[in-house]
């Protein structure tokens, strides 16, 4: 099967659009995330402040650093907890929501925001020259239209660590 003859794929040859060096997507607002995980529930804030002793204990149990002392937690009227957390990698900042059942088990996990940012210049001058004269303005402006990236996303290792930390916070402070 020829992908071009079947109009499966149209190369963006004519589109000399600007490349982007940062990328951000909001998947869910706070309210949307709450309703996605606990449909129909009402939410009461029950934010948690982690003490020094608790921090030490959480870090000991999980091997994950506690960077932020305040954990944003809501109680769902239908039972369970809704937690918003953030994980920071070298190039990414991910905000996600995790719903916990009344027994502390993970009910559902949803990414709320995904931001990727690289502070570098394009070092390769020859490569950069390709854009000169092809664009008006800064060729490295943020292209807000970017939706679908072919090519690996960063690994979700940080999210796994974040969830481990959230579960320990639950165990140490909320149980």
């Amino acid at each position: 099967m020829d992908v071009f003859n079947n109009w499966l794929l149209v190369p963006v040859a004519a589109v000399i659009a600007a490349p982007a060096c940062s990328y951000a997507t909001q998947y869910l607002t706070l309210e949307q995330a709450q309703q996605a995980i606990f449909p129909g529930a009402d939410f009461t804030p029950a934010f948690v402040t982690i003490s020094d002793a608790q921090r030490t204990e959480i870090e000991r149990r999980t091997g994950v650093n506690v960077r932020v002392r305040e954990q944003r937690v809501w109680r769902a009227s239908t039972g369970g907890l809704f937690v918003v957390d953030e994980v920071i990698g070298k190039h990414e900042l991910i905000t996600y929501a995790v719903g916990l059942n009344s027994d502390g088990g993970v009910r559902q996990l949803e990414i709320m925001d995904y931001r990727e940012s690289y502070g570098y210049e394009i070092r390769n001058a020859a490569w950069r020259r390709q854009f000169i004269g092809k664009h008006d303005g800064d060729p490295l402006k943020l292209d807000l239209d970017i939706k679908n990236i072919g090519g690996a996303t960063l690994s979700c290792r940080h999210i796994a660590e974040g969830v481990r930390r959230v579960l320990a916070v639950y165990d140490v402070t909320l149980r």
Partner: protein
Amino acid sequence: MSDTQTVTLRRARPLLGTLVEVTAHGACRAHLTQAVNAAFDTVASVQRLMSFHEAASDVGRMNRLAHRVAVRVHPWTWQVLHAAQRLSRASAGVFDVTVGGELMRLGYLPAAVRGNLDRRARWADVRLLPGRRVRFARRLLIDLGGIAKGFAVDRAVECLRASGASAGLVNAGGDLRGFGAVPWRIHLRHPTQPGLLLPFADLASGALATSAGYFSRRVRDGAERTSIIDGQRRVASDATFSASVAASNCMLADGLTKLVVLRGHRACGLVRRLGGRAFILKADDPYAKPVSGA
């Protein structure tokens, strides 16, 4: 149904060791929500069946037991193994899922089993027997990482379609497939500066998978190596380009990208014969027209 009533949902969850993103268009928000949740559940099922890390998965069970007894697997695992064997045969073993041992030694996979692996083991040592049973002729470890992600995307797309979404796109860390009358603009990462996103193509219906080493490259024996292993030579690729393959389904596209990463231009003819179309983005000149296997 008028266009103004079309609802779009876009969600992401961490699955398959990456972020899986599901986008769906349809008429009814409640319906779409169910469809998107079902698509994620499907991906999670594939993960449970084919994860190297989970001892209870089909892959975990085969790796522990199949050198001693025949192991019965789920129809989906069976389907993926069949596709993998077809690719291995067609590529004379360049594509090979029995590279789990090499990936373990390189530190890409955790130590999964005790005992010595047979370094001579190859794809042909994986015997697919009647009754969906699998037997290994030598002690080996399979890793379906090079093809199962694409399969998961195909199943998720199937799920969205069956749930009545009018259009949709599932993207599992760069292995993606779309359907419906929506041109999906796809950006590719620059091969050596992955933060740069280059507009690449509009995908109407079909799959595009991309493999590159940018987030997995490690230095071994003084050279940078990716996690993509040549099944014939048993060495990790040191490719600095990124390889994309367009095909009608994502499992095929996913598997074929490995051949392109491993053999570059020389694989393009084979990719084409197998129903794909290869594109290579080079580090020094990514905007040169994508080279396809014409």
